[in-house]
C-alpha cells in the first residue's frame, strides 16, 4: 500500500474520533456549568475544557472571555481551530476523498454525509441548536463511520491503519477528558470528596456515555477510584486506556504479521499495553492521576511518531 494512502486512512480514523471527543468535551462543560457555583466570585467551568484541548491561548486571543457561545463556536464550528468538530470532519472527509478507492462506499457515505449535514448545521441559527443536539449528532456520525469501517471494509492493511488511528486517538482523548477533572479541581484540593466533586465525576461519566455502564460494572456510590478504574484499567470499558491500547497493539501486531516484519511502533505499544494490564488502580493514585495521564499521553504520542516513521513516510528501512 502507498505510504500516503496509509497516512490518509490513519488520519481519517484519528480525526473522526477526535471530532467525537470535542463534542463530548462541550457536553462536559455545559453540564458542569449547570452546577451552582460554590466558589467565591466568578469562575467559568469552560476554562478547564479549553485547557484539556490545549487550545486555550488560541481561544483567548480570538474570543477573549470563555462564555458558552464562544466556546461552542470555537470547539464545534470554528475552522481556524484545527481540532474543532467542523475542522475534524472536514479533514476526515478530505482524507477519505483522497483515498476514495481504498474505502467502501458506506464509509465514504458516512463521511460525506456528515460533511453535507454540517453545512446545514452551519446555516441553522444557533438559538435553534442545543448543545446536546450537537453532541449527539457528532457521536452518531462517528458511529456511522465506525460501523461502516467494521462491517464493510476489506480487512487488509488499510483496515488496520484506520483502526490504529482511532485507537491511538481514543487512548489520547480519554486521557484528556479524564484530565479535565484535574484542571477543574486545581483551585483547591479541599473540594475532593465534596458534593461538587461527585457531581463532576458523574458528569464525566455521562459525557462518555458510561454512567449506566458504571452502575452495571461497579454499583453503589460514585467514587473517584471507581471512575478512574473504569476509564483507565477496565478491560470491559470500550473507552478505557487499557482497551484502546489493546486495540492499537492488536492492529500493530496484524500489520507486522501482514508485512512479515516487526516494528518499533509495535514493541512500544506492546510494552505500554503490558504495563497497563499489570497495573492496579492504587498505582495510578500513588503516582498522581494527572502525572500518570501526562506520561501516558506522551507515550501515546511517541507510538504515533514511530508509526509515522515506520509506515507513513515510505523511505527505505
Amino acid at each position: 500500500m502507498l505510504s500516503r494512502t496509509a497516512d490518509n486512512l490513519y488520519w481519517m480514523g484519528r480525526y473522526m474520533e477526535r471530532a467525537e471527543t470535542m463534542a463530548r468535551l462541550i457536553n462536559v462543560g455545559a453540564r458542569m456549568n449547570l452546577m451552582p457555583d460554590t466558589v467565591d466570585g466568578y469562575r467559568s467551568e469552560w476554562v478547564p475544557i479549553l485547557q484539556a484541548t490545549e487550545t486555550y491561548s488560541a481561544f483567548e486571543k480570538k474570543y477573549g472571555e470563555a462564555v458558552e457561545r464562544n466556546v461552542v463556536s470555537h470547539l464545534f464550528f470554528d475552522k481556524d481551530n484545527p481540532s474543532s468538530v467542523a475542522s475534524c470532519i472536514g479533514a476526515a472527509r478530505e482524507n477519505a476523498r483522497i483515498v476514495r478507492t481504498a474505502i467502501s462506499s458506506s464509509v465514504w457515505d458516512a463521511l460525506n454525509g456528515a460533511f453535507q449535514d454540517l453545512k446545514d448545521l452551519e446555516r441553522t441559527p444557533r438559538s435553534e441548536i442545543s448543545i446536546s443536539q450537537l453532541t449527539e449528532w457528532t457521536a452518531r456520525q462517528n458511529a456511522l463511520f465506525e460501523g461502516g469501517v467494521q462491517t464493510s471494509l476489506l480487512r487488509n492493511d488499510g483496515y488496520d491503519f484506520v483502526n490504529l488511528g482511532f485507537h491511538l486517538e481514543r487512548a489520547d482523548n480519554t486521557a484528556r477528558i479524564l484530565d479535565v477533572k484535574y484542571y477543574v479541581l486545581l483551585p483547591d484540593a479541599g473540594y475532593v470528596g465534596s458534593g461538587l466533586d461527585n457531581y463532576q465525576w458523574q458528569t464525566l461519566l455521562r459525557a462518555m456515555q458510561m454512567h449506566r455502564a458504571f452502575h452495571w460494572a461497579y454499583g453503589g456510590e460514585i467514587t473517584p477510584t471507581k471512575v478512574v478504574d473504569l476509564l483507565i484499567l477496565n478491560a470491559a470499558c470500550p473507552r478505557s486506556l487499557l482497551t484502546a491500547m489493546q486495540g492499537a497493539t492488536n492492529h500493530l501486531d496484524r500489520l507486522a504479521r501482514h508485512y512479515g516484519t516487526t516494528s518499533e511502533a509495535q514493541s512500544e505499544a506492546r510494552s505500554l499495553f503490558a504495563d497497563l494490564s499489570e497495573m492496579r488502580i492504587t498505582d495510578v493514585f500513588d503516582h498522581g492521576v494527572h502525572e500518570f495521564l501526562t506520561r501516558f499521553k506522551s507515550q501515546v504520542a511517541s507510538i504515533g511518531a514511530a508509526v509515522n516513521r515506520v509506515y507513513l513516510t515510505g523511505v527505505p528501512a
Partner: protein
Amino acid sequence: MAATYFNEMYDGGLIRPPYARLEDWQKNMPDELRNLKQAEAESLFRRIGITFAVYGEGGDPDRLIPFDMFPRVFTSLEWQRLSRGVKQRARALNAFLCDVYDRGEIVRAGRIPARLVYENEAFEKSVVGFRPPKSVYSHIVGIDLVRTGPDDFFVLEDNCRTPSGVSYMLENREIMMRMFPALFRENRIAPVESYPELLRQTLASVAPEKCRDEPTIVILTPGHYNSAYYEHSFLADLMGVELVEGQDLYVDGDYCWMRTTEGPRRVDVIYRRLDDSFLDPLCFRPDSMLGVPGLMNVYRSGGVAIASAPGAGVADDKAIYTFVPEMIRFYLGEEPILNNVPTWQCAKKDECKYVLENLKDLVVKEVHGSGGYGMLIGPRSTKSEQELFAAKIRENPSNYIAQPTLALSTCPTFVDEGIAPRHVDLRPYCLVGGDQCELVPGGLTRVALTEGSLVVNSSQGGGVKDTWVLAD
C-alpha cells in the same frame, strides 16, 4: 433554422429505427416520475462523488455535470463504420508520432510543412531519437466527432495526450441500468464495462523490456484538487492499480520507485494524467511540484514506460489536425473513413483573408485552446465580438484556425418544458497497445443543454448522456 439540423430520433414524422423503443418509454413516463428519476440520478452522482470543478470560475467545487436521461443511440452498422474510422485515425496518429521523432519521412516527402512540426510548441525535443516501448506514443486516443446527417460524421479534433471523460461513459451506463432496468431488457445494448480491463491490458502490453515479470502499473494524478481527480481514482480502482502523486514516486538508479508501507516498490508503467511540462522538473518546468525529478532519464533509458508518451501532443495540435487525412494515406495507404471538418489556417495569407471576411459564418479557435475557451462562434457573436477577434487574428494569425459552423445533429433531451432537441457530439476512446487497437462500443455523448447552443463543453454548461450501441 431548426429544420436544417439532423434529428437523430425524428426523421420528419418518422422515428428512426434505433430509437423505436424509446418513443413508448418517454411517452409513458409521467412528469412526476421523470422528476423523481432525475432527482434520483442526481443524488446517485453526488453520492458516488462524481463532481466536476471548473478552472478559474470559483463557485461550488463539487458541481455536478448535468446528466440527461434520454439516451443517444447508434445502430451496430453505424458503429462499425465509426469504429473502423476511429481505429484508423489512432493508428495513423501513432505512426506519425514515431516518424516525426525519428526520420521525419512525412516531412521529407513534403506532405506536412516542417515548420508546423518542428517549431510546434508541443514538439518535444527531449525525446527525439527515442522510440517508446512497442512504438506506441498515444495509448488512449479520444476522437471528438460530430454528426450532420445519417451518414455524415466529422472529426472535430483528436486528443492524443490524456483525454478525460471516460468515467462518465461508464457511470452514465451504470446509473441508467440502475434506474431503468426494463429499457435494457427490451433493447439489446452492447456493454461498455470491459473498458477498465482493456485499459489495464493495454498499459501492461507496453511495459519496458527490462520488466520481466508482471508489470506494476500506476496512475499518476496531479492530486485531488484536479478537476478530473474523480476519474483518476475511479480508473485506478477499477483497474486495481495504485493512484499516485508525484510525491509518492522517486528515482533511484535506473528505475522509478513508489513509497509504500513495505518500503520502495519498482514502477514499470505510468499512466500519467498530467501534462508533459509537469512530468519532471529536471527536464521541463523547474517549478513543478507535481512531477518526479529524474523521471525522464529513467524513461529514456528504458526503465519505465509512460502513457501517453511525452511528446504525443504534437499530433493533436489543431494546426496538425488538417493533415491527419494525409497521414492516413501516407502511413496506412488507405483512404480516410472519417472526414475532417474543412479548416482554414490563418497562418496562410489567403486563407486568413477569407476568414476575416467571413467571420460571421465561421467558428474560430485558438490552435492550442481547449475546453471551449478562447473561441468565436460567428453566427452567435455580436459585431463588436467579431471585431475584437479580427484584431486578435491580425496580431497573431498563426495562433488561429477557422471552420464552418457545422449543423450538429440533435438528440431528444429532457428540458423544463418536456422533451426538445439539443445538439450533441461524441467522444469514443480508442486504446492502442503493443499488439492491439480496441474500442469499446460506446463513448461520451456531450449535449449542449441551452436551446440552440452548439457548445457542448462541460465547462460551458454542457451535459452528458448515456451512449448506446445496439447489438445486432
